[in-house]
């Protein structure tokens, strides 16, 4: 059996999730040049928000009824936390040296993780998350889980929605203007504070959707699920060209597929047996990142921004 189609599909699903989370990194960076390291934790709180909605629904509620409510609940939690983080952690530091908000972001990330760990009931272990019934579905030699279908569908919807929003709406154009030059944008009458809040909110929304998809796919949420996912999504954002929303999605897909193929095939190369397998996936992901950044420092779809380097 040729496993390549299946491994590509595996990478595609994983990459869609990275991409959804990466949007949060890239939008915030594009507008305020801040690496929001707490974004992984915002993703995690979205998952817990959705789980809370699910557990508070009466027993026996159909998953198809529960799912939209979970997405809404999770998004609410994640968006509120993202906006709160912007308002109380980052805004006071705007204009401070770059390192200050960066360290704040790391601190916030730890604080959110520990808060959920301590205060969410039984969160010290993985909590089980409902899964979609049905599946696996077979397309040729590829088998697809129902959770994966949800993931890809929402990724496509979210991305095309975001693209349309940024391109056509008034707020979207204001965002582009702010990203280009915040000072001039402000002089032109754009409320940049509002734009920044919206960027955080969209990032939180996408993270929550990704968290619900992750919960459905793996059947669990965990207080530290944001750490690795966040790191990978950040990598994806840089790979695609940080600041560029299409780059985030592309970077996610490339990273997911690279990881999947690296752990599947590298060990088949003679002499590389020791360097393949699942445990090396992260290593190859970062090797890819380094190689891409050596050739294209601005990332796959990034633009050269000399004045901000």
């Amino acid at each position, binding site marked *: 059996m040729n496993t390549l189609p299946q491994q590509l599909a595996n990478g595609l699903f994983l990459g869609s999730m990275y991409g959804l989370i990466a949007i949060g990194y890239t939008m915030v960076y594009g507008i305020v040049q801040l690496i929001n390291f707490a974004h992984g934790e915002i993703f995690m709180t979205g998952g817990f928000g959705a789980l809370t909605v699910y557990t508070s629904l009466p027993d026996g509620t159909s998953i198809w009824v529960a799912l939209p409510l979970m997405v809404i609940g999770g998004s609410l939690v994640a968006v509120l936390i993202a906006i709160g983080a912007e308002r109380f952690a980052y805004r006071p530091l705007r204009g401070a040296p770059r390192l200050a908000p960066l360290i704040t972001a790391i601190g916030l990330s730890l604080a959110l993780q520990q808060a959920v760990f301590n205060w969410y009931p039984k969160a010290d*272990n993985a909590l089980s998350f409902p899964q979609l019934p049905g*599946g696996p579905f077979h397309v040729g030699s590829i088998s697809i889980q129902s959770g994966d279908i949800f993931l890809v569908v929402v990724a496509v919807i979210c991305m095309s929605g975001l693209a349309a929003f940024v391109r056509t709406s008034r707020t979207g154009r204001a965002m582009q203007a702010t990203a280009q030059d915040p000072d001039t944008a402000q002089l032109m009458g754009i409320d940049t504070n509002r734009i920044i809040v919206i960027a955080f909110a969209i990032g939180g929304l996408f993270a929550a959707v990704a968290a619900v998809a992750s919960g459905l796919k793996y059947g669990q949420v965990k207080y530290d699920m944001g750490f690795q996912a966040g790191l990978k999504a950040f990598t994806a954002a840089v790979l695609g060209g940080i600041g560029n929303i299409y780059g985030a999605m592309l970077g996610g897909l490339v990273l997911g597929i690279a990881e999947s193929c690296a752990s599947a095939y590298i060990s088949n190369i003679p002499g590389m047996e020791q360097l393949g397998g*699942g445990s090396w996936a992260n290593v190859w992901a970062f090797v890819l990142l380094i190689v891409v950044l050596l050739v294209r420092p601005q990332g796959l779809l990034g633009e050269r921004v000399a004045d901000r380097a």
Partner: protein
Amino acid sequence: MRHRSLLILTSVLTTGALTLTACGSRSDDGKKDDGATTTVVIGVDAPLTGANSATGLGIQYGVQIAVDDANAKKLVPGVTFKVKALDDKALPASGQQNATALVADKSVIGVVGPLNSGVAQSMQQVFSTANMVEISPSNTNPTLTQGKTWATGDKVRPFKTYFRTATTDALQGGFAADYAFNTLHKQKAYIVDDKQTYGAGLAGIFKGKFTALGGKSAGEDHVNTGDTDFSTLVTKIKNSGADILYYGGQYDESELITKQLKAADVKIPLMGGDGMFSDTYIKTAGAAAEGDLSTSVGVPVTTLQGAKDFIATYKSKGYPGDYGTYGGYSYDAATAIIKGVKAVMDANGGKLPAMDDARGKLVEAVQKTDFDGIAGHVSFDQFGDTTNKQLTVYQVKSGKWEPVKSGTYTG
């Protein structure tokens, strides 16, 4: 890895701060030798939060019940035992911090723990330098007692302060391979481990025995602890034609692997060691766990006459965690220390020597341990390994771990 190093730094600072306060307040307790009772503390180190904590809490409360029993029965006249439990989060670095803290606390005479073999490696030297007894109820990696060259028959005990009431993976891996090949008639095993001391060791031993018996390795892979996506691995297993998956590691990853494996229509059982013998595994994996197998040390705790009271107490007190795997062994490990303390005092005219002296004498006393515990006979060989070599294979049937074969394995 920025987050993790900060996380560690923070926990190190916190542990340090806690240790300082602990020393300040407790040093008095140990020296209260006013003729009434002396308080002697038995330390516990196990993961009490996060990964592996269900099993870790089983160790903490197993020791707690042993200590409560000893105090109630006045097993050692004039001594009241107390438990001091520290959380190692299944991290070697935290384990070493805890070991240092326990050694520094002059009221602690000996320690039960840790759960993970990898954590034990980071603690052994600390206890050895302090000449303090450490009895693990669950470490199964052979090198801990028999040295790095154990596989070639050149066994050297690295630390004379380290003992364990669980038998080793050398026996457990072999027992599993024997069951998979001879009883289940499996021919091709796909072998995966988590690269940790315990998991990689166990998987390696399984592979060696399985192929020696005539089975084939359909492939091998390694995963990272904390990973959640195993779709690539599942595809490889599916394609390899394996008829059993052997996993060396903890339940945190294996429960996800089995779930993703079965979801992809690969209907082969996952077999693992005592690290995944936990109710949490079944709870998380759900229907996917059905038919999966696990070996564990000892015989089922529920079948032991002596453990009836223990289980009843555990349940009636409403203690959290999972006593099924190591609760009995933890109880016996703590009892070995308690009996050791009695022996030390008897040899010293009924009084406890100064703590540094007492710790050293306790090591000798524990080496001579010989009693019937609740999980079987307790005594240690020249390596500090238990002489109780019983093992059991469990299988998930109707959502419960059911014992399918018990026996002793000698290699």
